[in-house]
């Protein structure tokens, strides 16, 4: 055998092995976003319409999120929420955080009240209008936390339609004992996955939101259970009576604050001899 030919064959063999690797190395995620799968969008919109058109409903949410520390370490915190909606103007959310802190948010058609049971303080903001307006005021203006707030809006389908830039069907799977369609969506700011129940009741059972533009790409997740579209709701549930010993405070967004100044060292004389 000609050694040159043998060497050439060996070389070509090596190249043949490495070319696919080279191809993979060059194959970076495409900048072009995948298109919106119309069937997946139909599933998503069916779910959104089902919830947004319901005059009343209640649902339980168990959620968690990554809090990215300065060290880069991700630490998960969680909470449970019991949510009651009576359109057009009533909302109640009972919250228990993973550290045991409990709070309540009530929208009674005239006011929005946030009550912190742990600190026995509450804040009010007048909001005569719909649940939609109250939620947008609470989250957008008062900068308060209300995870998956868009889910509670009557405009939820439009919110999704406006934001989703790419949407694909992933697979059929089972979440909390329900057969679900698993969808993966992309928006400008976040990627999210949704698990929507198959059949006549297209309920949302699980959501994962990835904040892809943030450092360490933290995630928020939520499991939604005990959907009830005929809940026994009473006026009392949407009425707030300050418990004895509780104090009214302001929302930080309403706080009249002086112009912040840099912290300057201050001398204090005196002390014990």
């Amino acid at each position, binding site marked *: 055998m000609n050694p040159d030919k043998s*060497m050439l064959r060996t070389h070509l063999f090596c190249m043949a092995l490495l070319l696919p690797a080279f191809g993979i190395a060059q194959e970076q995620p495409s900048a072009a976003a995948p298109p919106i799968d119309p069937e997946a969008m139909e599933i998503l919109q069916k779910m959104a319409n089902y919830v947004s058109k319901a005059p009343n409903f209640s649902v339980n949410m168990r959620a968690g999120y990554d809090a990215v520390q300065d060290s880069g370490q991700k630490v998960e915190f969680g909470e449970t929420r019991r949510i009651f909606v009576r359109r057009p103007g009533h909302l109640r959310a009972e919250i228990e955080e993973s550290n045991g802190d409990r709070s309540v948010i009530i929208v009674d058609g005239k006011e929005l009240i946030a009550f912190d049971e742990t600190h026995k303080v509450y804040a009010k903001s007048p909001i005569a209008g719909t649940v939609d*307006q109250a939620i947008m005021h609470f989250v957008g203006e008062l900068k308060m936390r209300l995870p998956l707030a868009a889910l509670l809006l009557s405009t939820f389908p439009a919110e999704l339609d406006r934001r989703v830039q790419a949407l694909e069907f992933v697979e059929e799977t089972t979440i909390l004992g329900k057969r679900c369609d698993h969808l993966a969506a992309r928006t400008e700011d*976040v990627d999210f996955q949704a698990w929507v129940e198959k059949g006549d009741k297209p309920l949302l059972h699980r959501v994962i939101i990835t904040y892809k533009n943030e450092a360490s790409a933290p995630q*928020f997740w939520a499991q939604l259970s005990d959907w009830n579209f005929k809940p026994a709701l009473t006026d009392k549930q949407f009425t707030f009576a300050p418990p004895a010993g509780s104090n009214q405070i302001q929302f*930080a967004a309403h706080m*009249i604050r002086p112009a*912040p100044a840099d912290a300057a060292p201050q001398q204090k004389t005196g*002390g014990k001899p």
Partner: protein
Amino acid sequence: MKLRYTLLVASLLSVFVLLAVPVQEVDARGGGGASRSGGGGGGGGFSRSGSASGGGFSSRSSGGGGGQRSSMSGGGQRSSMSGGGQKAAGTSGGGQQASSMSGQRAQQGSSQASAQASQRQQQTSSQASQKSSQASSQASQRQQQASTQQSTNQQSRQGQQQTTQQGRQEQQTQSQQARSEQQTQTQESHQTQQDQNKQSQSENQQSRQTQQDQNREDWQDHGSEAQEDRQDFYDDEVDGDWDGYYGDDDWEEAVVAGAVIVGTAAVVSAAATPTTSTTVVYAQPAMGAYVTTLPCAPVKTVVNGITFLSCDTTWYNQVYSGGGVAYVVVTRPPGY
């Protein structure tokens, strides 16, 4: 032979190049994490906040992490963030403008409310001083009346002593007259005082009514303006990323760091046994800064229905912020 070596070298080089590409990529990805961890973590507990805590379908903060996070520390930016202007960095233009406008409205609302609150405080203090001067005037009148009465009694008693030789009948008559005059004077005095009190009460009621009316008008105006602002906000943000809550709390850490310095200074001054006075130098939290925990067991003071909490010379108000209760550094209430 030469060709063989050349091919071998070329093969080895190609293998090296192809393997090196992914390694460089891994290094590049790892670099971000290393630089973040090199920035030093915060002492104390873990932060519960962050962009994912909001659970929104959008995020207004831009990527880039470190730079933005450090620029936000220091408490001041939080104020502008709550208005939405700086928080909108990295978002599309429309949303940024809308949130910036909303921030301006919030600031205007805030300053209006501030002016109204200040006006109400001035009215209250003015009325309080009026009440105080009326009360002191009444007290002065009462003192004068009592003095006149004492003088009359003394004269009456002196007269009685000087006329001891006169008959008991006359004395009794004089005494009766004196008592009668005294009673009359006392009755007149009481009547005058009651009239003054009634007049004063009436004036106070009128004053209070006027103040209540003013307050009601102020709050109605404020509520009406706030309602209009909210409607504007709803109209503006209905097409924007209104739920892009950003829960960064670097400002809290900065202020808490100040509190740690205070604590350390206190320990040092307590541990030392100086014979002369000690000078304690500490960093005071910036006015308007937020903290989630107070550096001491605070002293609670209620001023005009508002609860203030104080640690040494720093005064706080409790506020609802983000996911829960926080404390904001405020100016010391007047008179404290």
